[in-house]
């Protein structure tokens, strides 16, 4: 956020178009692929604007050490990590405080959609690797991870779809990219379970008044729903495209 300063007026032009030509309620181009990694039990690749992110799922599997297993459900673990070459300046490969926080909220955003109670005493690992980062990498990562969990055949209540809205040049917009994030006034990433309209991730950086908050929240929800369609298409593409009918759950 650069609320304090930054000549952010030019971020939206007189035609109401954003720097990359998008309308205020338009997502960046999104591409989702399913099952791209051989070894993983489930995997997905997402391009979301300039974000290039891989997600892989291993599990359900044995827990080590055993005493950290849960008696009534699977232990969900999650790592969000940025490759050293994913950013403008080389990123130290050791996990930053930011990555640790995002790993936590990502796990908590995914968990409500998973029927972990079906897999007691096991672990499910979700690994999200940001190969190239742009604004909104945590949302893109959650969306990819949810597809990878479906690909792994983990029993789910719903997919989790994520998208941010924000405030740029005084206007509420959906899906904030890198420049808009740095120069803009607010970023509101959320994740929802689209079938039940339940919010599983919400963070906010930057200033929004009541009206702006409501509008941004609504924009983000609509963004999530568009992402959800793309997630479904990707999964259907993989399973039905190859004329295989996926079994419900595992």
């Amino acid at each position, binding site marked *: *956020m650069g*609320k*304090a*300063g930054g000549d952010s007026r030019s971020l939206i032009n007189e035609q109401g178009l954003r720097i990359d030509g998008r309308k205020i309620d338009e997502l960046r181009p999104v591409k989702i692929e399913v099952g791209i990694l051989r070894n993983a039990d489930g995997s997905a690749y997402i391009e979301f604007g300039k974000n290039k992110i891989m997600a892989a799922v291993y599990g359900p599997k044995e827990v080590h050490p055993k005493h950290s297993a849960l*008696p*009534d459900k699977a232990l969900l673990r999650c790592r969000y990590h940025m490759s050293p070459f994913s950013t403008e300046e080389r990123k130290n490969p050791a996990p930053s*405080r*930011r990555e*640790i*926080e995002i*790993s*936590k*909220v990502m*796990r*908590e955003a995914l*968990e*409500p959609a998973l029927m972990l109670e079906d897999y007691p005493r096991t672990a499910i690992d979700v690994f999200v690797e940001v190969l190239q980062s742009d604004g909104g990498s945590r949302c893109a990562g959650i969306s990819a991870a949810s597809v990878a969990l479906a690909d792994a055949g983990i029993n789910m209540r719903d997919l989790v779809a994520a998208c941010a809205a924000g405030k740029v040049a005084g206007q509420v917009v959906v899906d904030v990219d890198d420049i808009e994030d740095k120069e803009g006034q607010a970023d*509101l990433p959320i994740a929802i*379970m689209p079938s039940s*309209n*339940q*919010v*599983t*991730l*919400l*963070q*906010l*950086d*930057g*200033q*929004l*008044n*009541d009206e702006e*908050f*409501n509008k941004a*929240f609504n924009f983000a*929800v609509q963004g999530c729903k568009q992402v959800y369609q793309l997630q479904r298409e990707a999964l259907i593409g993989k399973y039905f495209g190859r004329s295989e009918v996926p079994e419900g759950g595992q």
Partner: protein
Amino acid sequence: MSAVKKTIVVEQLKRAQMNELLVKGKRLDGRGLLDRRDLTVVTNVIEKAEGSARVTLGNTEVIAGVKVNMGTPFPDTPDKGLLVVSAEVLPLASPYAEPGPPDERTIELARVTDRGVRESGMIDVSKLVLVPGKHVYAVFVDVSILNVDGNLFDAVSAATVAAILSTRIPKYEVPAEGGAPVKTDQKMPLPVQTIPVAVTMAKIGEHLIVDPTSEEEAVMDTRITFVSDDRGNICAGQKGLPGSLTLDQVIFAARTAKLKGEEARLILKQGVGSV
């Protein structure tokens, strides 16, 4: 029955009991759903620090200290001072706290507190610059949790804000002939622009309750925090824990946070003024 299973059963009983009360609009300690516990604020408790505050929120107790150095700005923000907020749950604060580097929960706590201060623009960091790109004030806020009884987010935020409000930093001056700034005997407050306040709600079943205790946190489904400033803006937010919220609950939480934040802001102002 194993110890673990017993724990699960006990937890379920507790949840049921709490839900029964919540339906009637009540809580175990007699509060209403949106009532905050007593908040007390005392500042300047650590004379060696440039600013400090001890805050209690019910039985939750925290202490924050501010230290200020000369520092070098980040290359991409040469015209801004530095602000670093850190937190530690001291091992003396709870039977479950352990010594060691902060875990993910404490990192989240410190980062959300940091964002509340930073995104609200509480401190005008552009006024903490002595030589752009070279010499700026570096403000370190360290918060130690002394006793844990729920809602660390609001207690840590309040202590951070109160400590910042109480801070008097040594004034530095850049010598006429240039070079490193020199400390003077003069003191000045930090350039404060607004007072951000965090309000955290727990969701238990379908109920949102303000300022949960440890007992309530043990059974909560999820948690949501909003920080608001005194100009009508929400400036930071964080949903934590597994569990989810309806769209309406999010909107309700944001509105409630602003309302309840007003009360707390008054107490903070009085606490700082009282010293």
